């Protein structure tokens, strides 16, 4: 396998070490090595590497540049909120702090190129310099000239430099409208199931055998592979649940060879993990604590999404209910629901063709303030005066993001709102005030 990583100009043992650190990425690493050529040779001006999350893009670049001791600057575009930071980081890692301090306060691209050239003439490159830009998709939001300039930086600074862009987005969505120098495109494919198994099996527990750990990984992948192929996520889950897997072994109930019993023990546990810890409903710490407290059933702990209960004032609850009804019921049906003498109308009679689809599928509709208040007065049993506090409660519901104001044209005159809460939430609210909201919803008639 290591035979792939052979390249003149680099020491054999270093390449060996690189190959050890890059399992299942020999092809890509070999391709990159051949693109980079020998250290003193000129490489291609820019290389664009794309692939899904956790497909080893940064890792491969990092290991290659680190182990082969090539001069490089790794820049994360998330951190560089302004181009000044980007330039500073590049100069810092190539030429030291003196060069970085030469940059003016808000440097332009030409400042950077000038200082780079100046420094470069003092210490010319003996080896290819590499700039690795992580999360390169953010470069599209910076100045329009930055990405095209980076792509042909070799030409601009007249130095042996290669820019490597790493991204999860394909190059088609990067290309500036005015055209640019096309980089070399390199794709990192996803890890297959076998490769994931191979990589995950590497970090085995020292006190157990390798076969046991790889059979555990096999079970884990059997449960999670259909929903998750992210290596980092899987590794996290593997680390979290391994202690549970080993429990029967530690208690001496089962032998290591008895995989079926181990599987019977761990499988429901993993399925529960998918619903809780994988969705971050329960934090990893809570999950570990739960595994230790054996008597408490896992999953009995209420997750994050169970905490949807909000304490609201009495009228605010009714206002929210009224807003929900106004958002999800067609205005034509208001008379039928909220007036006392409306006459008997069957639902089939006023079904319009376009209203056959459920409003709950289409999402909330905007409604004017008048309609909200009309519904509010009809659902509240007692007489309520339209005081300032009622209106201020509406606006505070907006600030709590339970309602949203659509059309920002006018604050005072006939504002329109939308209700932004879910069905479960409004049901819980209406239960507290003994209001049967389902009876009033057009969709559930």
């Amino acid at each position, binding site marked *: 396998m290591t035979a792939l990583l052979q390249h003149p100009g680099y020491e054999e043992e270093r390449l060996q070490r690189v190959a050890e650190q890059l399992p299942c990425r020999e092809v890509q690493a070999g391709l990159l090595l051949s693109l980079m050529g020998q250290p003193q040779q000129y490489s291609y001006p820019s290389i664009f590497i794309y692939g899904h999350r956790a497909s080893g893009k940064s890792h491969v670049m990092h290991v290659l540049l680190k182990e082969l001791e090539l001069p490089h600057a790794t820049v994360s575009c998330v951190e560089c909120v302004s181009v000044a930071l980007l330039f500073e980081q590049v100069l810092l890692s190539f030429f030291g702090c003196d060069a970085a301090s030469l940059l*003016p306060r808000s440097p332009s691209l030409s400042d950077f190129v*000038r200082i780079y050239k100046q420094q470069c003439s003092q210490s010319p490159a003996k080896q290819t310099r590499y700039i690795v830009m992580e999360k390169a998709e953010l470069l*599209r939001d910076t100045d329009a000239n930055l990405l095209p300039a980076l792509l042909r930086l070799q030409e601009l600074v007249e130095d042996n430099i290669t820019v490597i862009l790493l991204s999860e987005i*394909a*190059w*088609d*969505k*990067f*290309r*500036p*409208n*005015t*055209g640019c120098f096309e980089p070399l495109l390199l794709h990192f494919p996803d890890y297959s199931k076998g490769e994931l198994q191979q990589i995950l099996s590497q970090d085995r527990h020292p006190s157990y055998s390798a076969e046991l750990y790889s059979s555990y990984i096999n079970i884990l992948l059997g449960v999670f592979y259909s929903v998750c192929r992210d290596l980092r996520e899987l590794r996290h889950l593997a680390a979290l649940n391994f202690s549970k897997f080993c429990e029967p072994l530690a208690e001496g109930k089962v032998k290591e060879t008895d995989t079926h019993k181990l599987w019977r023990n761990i499988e429901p546990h993993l399925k529960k993990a998918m619903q809780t810890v994988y969705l971050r409903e329960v934090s990893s710490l809570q999950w570990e604590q739960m595994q230790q407290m054996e008597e408490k059933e896992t999953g009995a702990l209420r997750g994050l999404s169970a905490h949807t209960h909000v304490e609201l004032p009495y009228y605010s609850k009714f206002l929210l209910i009224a807003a929900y009804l106004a958002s999800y019921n067609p205005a034509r049906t208001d008379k039928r629901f909220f007036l006392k003498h409306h006459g008997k109308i069957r639902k089939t009679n006023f079904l319009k063709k376009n209203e056959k689809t459920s409003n709950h599928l289409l999402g909330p509709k905007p409604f004017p303030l008048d309609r909200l208040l009309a519904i509010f007065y009809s659902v509240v049993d007692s007489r309520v005066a339209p005081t300032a506090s009622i209106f201020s409660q509406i606006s505070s519901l907006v600030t709590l993001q339970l309602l949203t104001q659509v059309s920002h044209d006018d604050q005072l005159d006939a504002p329109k709102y939308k209700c932004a809460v879910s069905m479960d939430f409004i049901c819980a609210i209406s239960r507290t005030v003994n209001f049967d909201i389902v009876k009033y919803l057009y969709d559930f008639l």
Partner: protein
Amino acid sequence: TPRHATPSIPSRSLPARQPANVLEEARTRLHVSSVPESLPCREQEFQDIYSFVESKIIDGTGGCMYISGVPGTGKTATVHEVMRCLQHAADVDEIPPFHFIEINGMKMTDPHQAYVQILQKLTGQKATADHAAALLEKRFSNAAPRKESTVLLVDELDLLWTRKQNVMYNLFDWPTRRHARLVVLTIANTMDLPERIMINRVASRLGLTRMSFQPYSFKQLQQIITSRLNKVKAFEEDALQLVSRKVAALSGDARRCLDICRRATEICEHSSADPSATGLVGMSHVMEALNEMFSSAYITAIKCASLQEQLFLRAVIAEFRRLGLEEATFQQVFVQHQALCRVEGLQPISVSEGLAVCQRLGACRLLLLEPSRLGVLQRIRLNVSQDDVLYALKAD
């Protein structure tokens, strides 16, 4: 900051070569920057401006004049000629001496820089824009016993426009002062500029002394070239006539005309290798130069595009026909493109390659595209007419 921030043309170490043959001689004479001995076909305008400025200088009063005309009709050249003549007249004591100052709106980073430049050219003082305005205000409104008249030429007037129009207002207000002795000549391209962009109090101060330079007719253009050549026999008569007729029909721009003539001499020089050439610039050379200058680059670009690019343009037009609109999304066009590929017997290309083709066409402005991050949903429009595309695609 860099020491040599202002770019400049490197200075010439050897003197310019003397023209060696007739064609080179013609080329130097036809160059736009070579000042002609006289300006033919602008005698009337010259006379009007001359008498206007001369009368103001002799009377010691001020005034404004607005000169308009399309580019290349000799506005700036005529005013400079007038100033040269007046300077000469002042030197021989026919008229009282005067200052001549010239500012150009295009050469300023900010309209308020006009004050700074005027002050510097008048007195050599340097000041900030506000201070310069105050100094000029004082200079033009106070009486001074031995003050000379000032003639101010403002080229590219439209670039001095500001929101409050105070620069223009001051420029036109100073001549109306009693002791100003300032004559302002303004030059711009459009005739109705005062009505369009100036507010009333500025336009009224500019006054009604206006002059518009008409585009040259073909006879005038011919006369200009012959007077420039001045007995250097380099052109055939018919060739000159063709150039002047073509240019007069399109724009009447004398600079354009000179450019084409110079290019034609170059072409003639290249083709002088074959023995049949007479050494004169003939009809064929001029035709070639005209084609180079006037033909559309788009059609050539389409003709030289790659097979897939041409196919993509075909697909764009097919999709427009199908939709009956002048706009389509990439995915709609791409479906057509795939179908066309199959019809032509080519391997259908992938979406990425299709996007690359599309964006290459967009980068050379044959297509108008939305930002590339919209992917296959970006909308496509043609930047050239459909007929041009069809003509270019059919020609081969």
